């Protein structure tokens, strides 16, 4: 281990970056993902990489980790030009990444997941199990994770899996640690622990690239920043020299109205009535009503059963009892097809798996649920499909090279727009948005918020599941708070404050 280095000790003018990227360019068919960008990572410092969706953050991470080869530019390690032809070469050079969507193996144990790809061997070339377990325990203890190395990964929750991913990244003696939105899936306490971990990594002299959309955490733990916009480098420097406003302006190229859109909050007639909806294991006795033009928030901790309730209303899972009524008419929703036919649509949290059909072009994704409009007697009509897809994608300001492009080539925020476009094309009555702005940048967030307000104004009934308190408070007319599968409270008006939300969601004493 190197001697602790504190950022204030570092003479930033003379310090040499561990890893320096200069003029890196990467082009995909029809898209220039990176255009001559530069990025420098210094030992013992956290560099925050900020930018909107599609700014090129994920692409640069893939360049750094050897998954993509840049078309142009220089990558210097300790001042020497180098290149990574494979992910293994990048790992060997001491670069490790904790990805947004972590790649782990459910059927293996915690320890196996940590050491897969670089398992310690005995002198006979066999796997050294005692060594693996010992070192896994050691690393887990270092990051403060209370996990059994022998536990199978499939039994762990999402936050614990994330800790395993972090442990895995630390199991190689990394000089550069890339964290791609590491706090997205973590609870408040786990985030605090992550910050401590980052501090420890800094003190060990490691360079950290921290990708985040959350400004409070950037200002809390980063020493430097680099901003990308539309695949270009727009600025970098010391965090201490910059303000939040200035960063936001660099990111979006304009100042963003952080205020939530003002709305006329006179709700219309009842559209959706859910009465004592229950599920054998996930939730019990959920009742609520939703009116035309209303935005109903669903707040709760991760695992409180919000998504499960929504998926039951959308026909994915079948409730054990309870009823759903649309316009006072009782409906049985056995499949998403039934829900869609009754005007209920669901924008899932897991965009890549449940939302977009990756492999199909954009226009086919948009028309997937509306083929009855574009087709005649079951025969598809391409011209009509392109027209419908264009209408809705342009309304959502989709950034794409063409409508025939694979939806998988789009950034997360743009994939989200395709999923929303798909549902709007069906002209729904009720739209359920599950964490609609999770993992998307401020600019897109504001756009999604404005769009939700517009939908409500047009008479759509909106349900928004969200874990972000400002969003819940700013957007919702009423909020249902869920806790451990039960409705803990229905809040509106003066009762709707950050304190009440947190109190009911976490069952803190004083929540009557």
């Amino acid at each position, binding site marked *: 281990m190197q001697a602790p280095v504190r950022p204030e000790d570092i003479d930033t003018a003379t310090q040499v970056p561990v890893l320096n990227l200069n003029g890196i360019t990467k082009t995909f*068919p*029809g898209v220039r993902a990176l255009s001559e960008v530069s990025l420098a990572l210094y030992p013992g410092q956290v560099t925050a990489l900020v930018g909107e969706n599609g700014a090129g953050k994920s692409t640069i991470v893939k360049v750094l980790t050897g998954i993509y080869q840049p078309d142009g530019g220089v990558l210097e390690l300790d001042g020497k030009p180098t290149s990574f032809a494979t992910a293994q070469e990048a790992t060997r050079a001491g670069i490790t990444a904790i990805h947004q969507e972590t790649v782990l193996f459910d059927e293996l144990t915690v320890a196996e997941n940590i050491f897969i790809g670089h398992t310690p061997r005995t002198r006979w070339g066999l796997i050294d199990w005692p060594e693996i377990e010992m070192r896994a325990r050691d690393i887990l203890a270092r990051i403060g994770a209370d996990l059994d190395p022998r536990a199978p990964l499939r039994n762990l929750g999402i936050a614990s899996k994330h800790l395993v991913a972090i442990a895995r990244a630390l199991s190689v003696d990394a000089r550069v640690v890339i964290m791609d939105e590491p706090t997205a899936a973590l609870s408040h306490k786990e985030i605090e622990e992550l910050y401590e971990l980052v501090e420890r990594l800094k003190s060990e002299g490691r360079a950290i690239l921290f990708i985040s959309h959350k400004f409070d955490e950037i200002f809390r733990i980063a020493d430097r920043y680099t901003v990308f916009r539309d695949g270009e480098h727009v600025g970098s420097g010391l965090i201490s020299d910059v303000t939040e406003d200035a960063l936001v302006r660099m990111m979006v190229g304009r100042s963003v109205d952080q205020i939530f859109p003002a709305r006329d909050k006179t709700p219309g007639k009842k559209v959706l009535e859910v009465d004592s909806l229950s599920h054998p294991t996930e939730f019990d006795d959920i009742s609520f009503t939703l009116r035309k033009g209303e935005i109903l928030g669903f707040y709760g901790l991760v695992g409180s059963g919000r998504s499960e309730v929504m998926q039951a209303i*959308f026909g*994915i899972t079948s409730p054990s009892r309870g009823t759903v009524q649309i316009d006072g008419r009782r409906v049985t929703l056995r*499949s*998403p*097809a039934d*829900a*869609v*036919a009754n005007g209920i649509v*669901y924008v*899932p949290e897991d965009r890549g*798996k*449940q*939302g*977009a*059909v*990756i*492999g*199909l072009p954009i*226009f*086919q994704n948009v028309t*997937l*649920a509306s*083929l*009855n409009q574009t*087709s005649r007697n*079951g*025969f*598809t009509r391409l011209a009509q499909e*392109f027209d419908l897809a*264009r209408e809705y*994608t*342009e*309304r*959502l*300001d*989709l*950034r*794409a*090279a*063409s*409508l*025939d*492009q694979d939806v998988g080539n789009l950034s997360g925020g743009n994939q989200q727009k395709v999923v929303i476009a*798909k549902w709007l094309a069906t002209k729904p009555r009720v739209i359920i948005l599950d964490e609609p702005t999770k993992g998307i940048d401020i600019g897109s967030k504001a*756009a999604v918020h*404005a*769009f939700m307000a*517009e939908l409500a104004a047009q008479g759509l009934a909106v349900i928004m599941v969200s874990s972000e308190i400002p969003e819940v408070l700013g957007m919702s007319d009423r909020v249902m708070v869920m806790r451990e599968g039960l409705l803990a409270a229905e809040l509106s008006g003066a009762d709707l404050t950050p304190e009440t939300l947190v109190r009911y969601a976490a069952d803190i004493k004083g929540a009557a």
Partner: protein
Amino acid sequence: MSDLSTRHIPDRLESPARRLLKSWEVLLLAVAVSIFIANSFASPYFLNAWNLSDATFNFTEKAMIAFAMALLIISGEIDLSVASIIALASTAMGAAAQFDVSAATLVLIGLGTGVICGAFNGFLVTGLGLPSIVVTIGTMSLFRGISYIVLGDQAYRGYPAEFAFFGQGYVFWVISFELVLFAALAVIYGILLHKTDFGRAVYAIGNNPTGALFSGIKVARVKFILFVLTGLMSGVAAICLTSRLGSTRPSIAFAWELEVVTMVVLGGVSILGGSGTIPGVVIAAFVMGLVTFGLGLLNVPGIVMSIFIGALLIGVIALPRLVDMARR
């Protein structure tokens, strides 16, 4: 979301014609033409209308199943029991033929057996959620096993005279009934996959079954229909093959499932699901038919033929990869 800021997104950056030029199907067509030319040089008997007509029997029956199998594989499933369905359907028809039933009744029995077998596979996969590769390996043994129990080392013969038309009849000059049926089914399956909502659902399911389900597609129903269609086509193939051979043994169409799957994959259908076309499968059928026929004319033994088909499959699949690697 003001209208002023909307950007126009073009439909396509590449015209469909240009995309076609780079497609798998065009490459495969070039292979088919080369084999055709090579064959005509290799054997003086090749360029003869009746010989060529005979050659089509090498692939027509398998291709009928391959069309339905292509859809099934694109949807992410597979049916390895197709050859055993032929055996069972043929056995059912043979048993019925012993009671002097009409040719029409035999056809209904053949088709019905196929549909029932396909529905059985479909139920096990979509109703019970079992993996299709395991289910159909099981039913592969089950269906043919029933045939063996019924027939042992015997054979059914004595099919009515009119029944011979399906496998031996000619519609016009050298154009056989089977070839016409093959062409008609190619058009029907091509339209079904490429021009209908059902076909679109098949692609969506193959690329992302969860995403398709969450988009309101009836995933289980589509898959069930595909299994039934594959069973039905196996029934059709059973009718043609039984009629052509004029007899039924339990070993009928043995190991055809591998040739059918080979044909589908050679046609450019991804074995992982999600992509592929019917024109590709049609060309692949011709390629396989031409190869077997050409080698047959040169008196190449059957075992060498299967080695050649295997090499062809690996070669044609590896070619684009190799070209890709060479470019880097």
